[in-house]
């Protein structure tokens, strides 16, 4: 028996020991069965405190009259060795006058802190006699307190492109509810992206709204990106559902509309930086090449990765300013973007395949990216450091002659500009001056023609002269005679006298022969006299001629010189001059 008692004691201790450690969290809430009544109607206020042994104070009823209560009930259960307890106190309240009443919070001391319930607002309308039998009909079309839907936004102001989360919620107090259809609002001015709710989608969660416990189901959540500034309205969501359907009951169809809401969208500050591409959020960029030392024609992978929060799905591939000798293809886009209750986030990665075609060192300039930072409300520019690629000679890309080798390429024109000025001799000339038609030009053109005409004239005369041998001889007589005279002149002082006189005689006789077309045999005195007689003053000239020739002959053969040589010479020269003059004068007379 004693032993038995000990066992029971042990059991009790075990039980108490377990009870001492409440494993469950403490719950404390206040609920009412409804929060809109008419005067005289009754409300049931229930306050539940669980998992603690503390006692709570009754709340301030805020002007409502307590009809009955509090009734207290408590329960305790042990599940899998864990104990939970619950204390419930219930009041029946009523209102005597219309208005808005607030049931204050109930408080309980737990540990060092105080837990309290939410205050509950009760709308009391003026009752009309006894309470209506059908509460649903009585409350009109305004709002079924047992079933309503709402749209909530997580912020009321946002920049263009900033993400806003819209939550569509259904609140219901019916046990059995079947949603037949719902129409989400038409989103004008938004780009929207649904949040995947996963498996927990339709599972209703209990939630107390203004004292009334509801089963709350989140129908859908969306991330909204406003696309324009201004006040954007979101129209109500419409839905219809069937409640209270059971095996025995077809149920009631209820159609309801949620609230409408609006969002103030702020425009992005202007002016936007030139490379701003519409990215809004909180975004980081990283640029990575898998290697910087390659051989020509080998591929390089370049990863440009944007991560963070924001409208990542709208990001476009950045513009790489690749060196000319690099070939690339459209980048491969890898998205790791999740859309969840905290918005759109994750990363978008662009993977470029770069193929350098020639050896050398190439610089890839830094990639610039500008986004609008929502937190600070400013534009932020990111830029990656430049990357230098060292490309060494690859197989088959160099001097080996190969018709199909990819190494040859056209020179690419990168940009156009005017050609540079000419810096050489500017070849300046006075403005307005032209050679053609100017006086020097005309003179230059005329000069050769003139020269040619002169040439023709000279030639004609010469031809005529050549044809006329006698005339030539006559014309040349003077010149030839002077030549002979000059020879004689050199001999004036010679020791021997014969050569001088011989030369002088030859000059005189030669002249006469030439001038009058006489052979040497014809140079007799009478012949000479006859010819000279035709000239004016011919007799005197003939006398002088005969005298001179005789003197020369005498001096040649006689032992003495009658006259000095100089005198003879001058005489001869004078005579030839005179005959020539007389001849010309005669010829001139003839021409007349």
């Amino acid at each position: 028996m004693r032993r038995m008692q000990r066992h029971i004691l042990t059991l009790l201790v075990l039980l108490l020991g377990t009870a001492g450690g409440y494993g469950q969290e403490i719950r404390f809430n206040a609920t009412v069965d409804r929060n809109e009544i008419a005067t005289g109607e009754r409300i049931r206020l229930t306050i539940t405190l669980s998992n603690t042994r503390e006692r709570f104070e009754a709340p301030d009823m805020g002007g409502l009259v307590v009809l009955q209560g509090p009734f207290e009930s408590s329960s305790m259960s042990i599940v899998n060795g864990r104990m939970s307890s619950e204390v419930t106190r219930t009041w029946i309240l009523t209102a005597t006058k219309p208005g808005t009443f607030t049931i204050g919070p109930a408080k309980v001391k737990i540990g060092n802190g105080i837990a309290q319930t939410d205050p509950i607002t009760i709308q009391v309308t003026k009752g009309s006699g006894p309470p209506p039998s059908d509460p649903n009909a009585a409350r009109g079309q305004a709002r079924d307190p047992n079933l309503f839907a709402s749209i909530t936004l997580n912020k009321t102001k946002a920049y263009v492109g900033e993400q806003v989360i819209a939550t569509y919620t259904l609140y219901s107090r019916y046990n059995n509810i079947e949603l037949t259809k719902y129409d989400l609002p038409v989103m004008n001015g938004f780009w929207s992206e649904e949040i995947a709710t996963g498996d927990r989608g339709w599972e209703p969660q209990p939630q107390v709204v203004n004292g009334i416990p509801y089963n709350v189901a989140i129908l859908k959540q969306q991330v909204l990106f406003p696309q324009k500034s201004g006040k954007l309205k979101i129209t109500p969501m419409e839905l219809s559902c069937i409640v209270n359907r059971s095996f025995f009951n077809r149920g009631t169809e209820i159609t309801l509309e949620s609230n409408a809401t609006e969002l103030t969208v702020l425009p992005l500050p202007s002016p936007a930086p030139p490379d701003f591409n519409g990215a809004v959020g909180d975004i980081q960029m990283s640029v990575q090449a898998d290697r910087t030392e390659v051989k020509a024609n080998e591929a390089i992978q370049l990863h440009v990765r944007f991560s963070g929060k924001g409208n990542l799905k709208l990001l476009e591939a950045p513009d790489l300013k690749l060196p000319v000798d690099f070939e690339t293809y459209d980048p491969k886009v890898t998205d790791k973007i999740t859309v969840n209750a905290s918005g759109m986030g994750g990363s978008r990665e662009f993977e470029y395949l770069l193929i350098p075609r020639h050896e050398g060192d190439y610089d890839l300039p830094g990639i610039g990216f500008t986004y609008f930072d929502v937190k600070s409300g400013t534009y932020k520019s990111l830029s990656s450091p430049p990357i230098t690629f060292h490309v060494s000679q690859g197989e088959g890309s160099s001097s080996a002659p190969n018709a199909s080798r990819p190494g040859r390429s056209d020179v690419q024109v990168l940009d156009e500009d005017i050609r540079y000025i000419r810096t050489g001799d500017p070849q300046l000339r006075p403005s307005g001056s032209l050679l053609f038609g100017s006086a020097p030009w005309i003179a230059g053109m005329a000069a050769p023609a003139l020269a040619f005409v002169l040439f023709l004239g000279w030639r004609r005369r010469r031809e005529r002269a050549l044809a006329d041998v006698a005339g030539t001889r006559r014309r040349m007589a003077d010149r030839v005679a002077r030549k002979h005279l000059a020879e004689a002149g050199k001999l004036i002082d010679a020791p021997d006298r014969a050569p001088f006189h011989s030369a002088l005689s030859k000059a005189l006789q030669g002249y006469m022969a030439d001038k009058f077309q006489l052979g040497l045999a014809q140079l007799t005195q009478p012949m000479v006299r006859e010819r000279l007689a035709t000239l004016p003053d011919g007799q005197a000239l003939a006398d002088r001629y005969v005298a001179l020739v005789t003197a020369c002959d005498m001096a040649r053969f006689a032992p003495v010189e009658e006259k000095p040589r100089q005198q003879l010479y001058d005489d001869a020269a004078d005579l030839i001059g005179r005959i020539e003059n007389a001849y010309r004068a005669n010829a001139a007379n003839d021409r007349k």
Partner: protein
Amino acid sequence: MARILIALFLALPLLGHGMSKQEAEALVQQANTAYSGSHYEQALALYDSARTEYASATLFYNIGNCHFKLNDIPRAILFYERALRLSPGSDDIQANLDLARQQVVDRINALPSFSLGNTWSSFRGGRDVDQWARRALWGCTALFVLLAGVLLVRANMVKRMLQVAAVIALLFSLMATGFAAVRKAEVTSTDEAIVMQAKVDVRSEPRDGSTVLFVLHKGTKVEVLQDANGWNEVRLPNGNVGWMPATAMERI
């Protein structure tokens, strides 16, 4: 007396010019330096002072470049056109003119015209405006020298060759004279102009208020047909004709 005359004769070419050729060339050199340092305004001023008394295709081309760099496209076109007149078929001038024309608003479809291309026009243009005139001089001289040769030489074979050469020289000098005459007409013609105003209404009559036929924009090249009290009648390459104020254009 004779010495004074000689001095006067030497000074004669200088009387018309306040600036010697050396001075002008020095100005052009300075301008080139300024241009290479991207001081286009300064370069333009220097070129312009050389232009007051001297001209050349190179000078006009460089001035056109300055205007282009200063973004004065109509004036750039004007000077490229002037340079092209002095040196037709020049590759550089044509390239820059084409580039400048790309920025002109008006696109006019020219009526099809006969053109033998750059080689022909640069052959026809000569190295400078006087080249054909000089060639005519040489050709004329050669012709008469050869004719004289024909008369002097007796050997039959040589005579025959000289005769052929003389015929060639005759044809050459005739052609050169013809080309020189055409070049003079081209260079001195004032019947082409460039529109200088940003926008100008071309009217049906030479007075304000008459019907606007079409609208031209700066940089467009027009042919001037006649002028009357401050208005010019112009023709477009596509054949349209109308009147516009003379102040809105500058002759090439």
